[in-house]
């Protein structure tokens, strides 16, 4: 039996093993040292690697992103942590204008192998400024890769791969998944960026879900199975580059697709997914409209109930998937 660890431990193990292997890798961010990071992701790493490689910063998101961008430019492999994805709004100039474009803009004379890790998502009662999901912002930027893992196994393989990748990678973790457990080999392994994973095979309809919505969709599928609705669940894992092949193949097979993500629906990654399907050869196989279930058009509120209802939950997925299963054009 493979050992089980949490999603959070998988992040830590990937960083630790890669730092042991490659002296060019270091971690920089707010409170990543003694504090262990706001979510304890890097807890214990300071003791292991010392303050030169587990670099605590004052509150300087732009500075952190710039430090990673610059260090990568001279051959290091920095991992920058932005404590909450909400604060990537302060770091995006360096990430989007500099890191993402250096290589192209300099005619290939530069390489910028950095990872920017950040936890996204709601569900912790932290309200408007600590709960946002901006993955589609970074998906929209050529030069960046965007990874959004949903299981401990994927976390470890994708994070090691991201660190080794020669491009800037935005690595988006989900707070609610940090404590989820799963089998993870102790040895190092990588998962290629740009490969989706079919998390559940099914015939009746496809759900393409990201982040915590993969887990919720799996729960929904289990319940719907009892009603005889057989759902296939595709987890893109990497949003840019996107494995359109796996998604399109699934939709061709099932003829129906529901897209589920936590981020606000309007302008979100679900639009990209819908468009990719609607402009592909899968279009001809569609037996129903392409549906999206996503975050409501509100900032994430504080109150527990309101927060709960602001993003898709298992019962919403069940309802929507059932509706779709019954739809006929």
């Amino acid at each position, binding site marked *: 039996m493979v050992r089980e660890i949490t999603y959070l431990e998988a992040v830590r193990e990937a960083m630790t093993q890669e730092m042991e292997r490659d002296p060019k890798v270091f971690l920089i961010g707010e409170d990543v040292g003694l504090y*262990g990071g706001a979510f304890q992701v890097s807890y214990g790493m300071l003791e292991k690697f010392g303050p030169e490689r587990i670099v605590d910063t004052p509150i*300087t998101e732009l500075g952190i992103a710039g430090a990673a961008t610059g260090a990568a430019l001279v051959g290091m492999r920095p991992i920058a942590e932005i404590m909450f994805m909400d604060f990537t709004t302060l770091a995006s100039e360096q990430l989007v204008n500099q890191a993402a474009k250096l290589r192209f803009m300099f005619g290939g004379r530069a390489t910028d192998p950095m990872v920017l890790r950040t936890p996204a998502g709601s569900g912790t009662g932290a309200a408007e400024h600590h709960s946002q999901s901006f993955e589609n912002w970074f998906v929209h930027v050529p030069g960046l890769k965007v990874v959004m893992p949903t299981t401990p196994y994927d976390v470890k393989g994708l994070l090691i791969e991201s660190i080794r990748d020669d491009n800037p990678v935005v690595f988006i973790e989900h707070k609610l998944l940090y404590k989820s457990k799963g089998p993870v080999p102790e040895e190092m392994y990588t998962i290629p960026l740009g490969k989706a994973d079919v998390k559940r095979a099914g015939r009746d309809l496809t759900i393409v879900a990201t982040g915590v919505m993969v887990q919720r969709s799996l729960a929904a599928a289990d319940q719907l199975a009892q009603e005889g609705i057989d759902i296939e669940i595709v987890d893109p894992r990497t949003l840019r580059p996107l494995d359109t092949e796996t998604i399109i193949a699934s939709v061709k097979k099932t003829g129906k697709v529901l897209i589920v993500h936590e981020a606000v629906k309007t302008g979100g990654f679900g639009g990209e997914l819908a468009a990719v399907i609607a402009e592909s050869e899968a279009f001809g196989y569609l037996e129903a409209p392409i549906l999206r279930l996503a975050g409501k058009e509100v900032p994430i509120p*504080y109150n527990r109930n309101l927060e709960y209802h602001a993003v898709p939950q298992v019962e919403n997925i069940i309802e929507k998937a059932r509706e779709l299963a019954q739809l006929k054009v």
Partner: protein
Amino acid sequence: MEVTKEIAEQYLLQMYQIRVFEEQAEKSYMAGKIHGTMHLSIGQEASAVGSVSALGPKDLILSTHRGHGHCIAKGADLKLMMAEFYGKANGYCRGRGGSMHIADVASGNLGANGVVGGGIPMAVGVGLGLKMQNEGKILLSFFGDGAASTGAFHESMTLSVLYQVPVVYVCENNQYAMSFPSNKWTTSEGLASFAACYGMPGKSVDGNDLLAVLEATEEAVEHVRNGNGPALVVCDTYRWRGHSKSDRNRYRSQEEIDAWKEKDPIERFKNHMIEKKTLTIDDIEKIKAQADADIENARLFAESSPDPDVSTLEEGVYAPW
């Protein structure tokens, strides 16, 4: 600085209210009645009450994630505040904001902020607005030592001096930004010295001494109200509790915490008032009892208040509403 009995009672009551409010919030949190997180300012009460007390009733404040003290010092309704902590429909933010986002624009509290340094750029704009409206109002904008390292601070100070906005900046240096010790990059004097680079007066003060804070802020307020542009006051202080509910206090020693507890701003003010014979022990006990009762009322109010109706979730994103 001399204060009358009435004033002394008010200051002490507000400091007690802050402390007891936060102790209650902490208890309710532990009991699972409040969720999310919160940033307690226990130990920093003098900085909040001392500085806000230098303002007139029409003046405004802009606060931070560690803003309960500012809010109470500005005269917030404790019931509406506690109800917000409980996420209730009649809380200050209708349950939308919680501890980190309490605001009451009508009464001059322009809001706490979940983003460190998030309020400072807004302060420039508020200052510009107040200057154009020319009604003699000024703004007091709080931020922490951590916020002082953000780019937002630098841009905002530069703009504030350039436009000579009527803003008193109060930096509460509680020695840490989460686990990051401010003395790794600056000191309270160092923070105050930035002011000169921008071209405004800056002063560092013992932030646990209410009257010292009040005096320094009054000086700053006078400077600002006379149209001389912004001013900076740095309050040297300390938070007793962890940064937030996730803090394990790994970055500081119990000795350090205990040493600062010796400098309790409430004890200090009490003793000073007793020494000065402004207040008696009896007076003080009454004030404390009053604070306890106020917070107990607030708790009862909050607990008996209704949750927001989920059907209203999507309301209020856009005006009009």
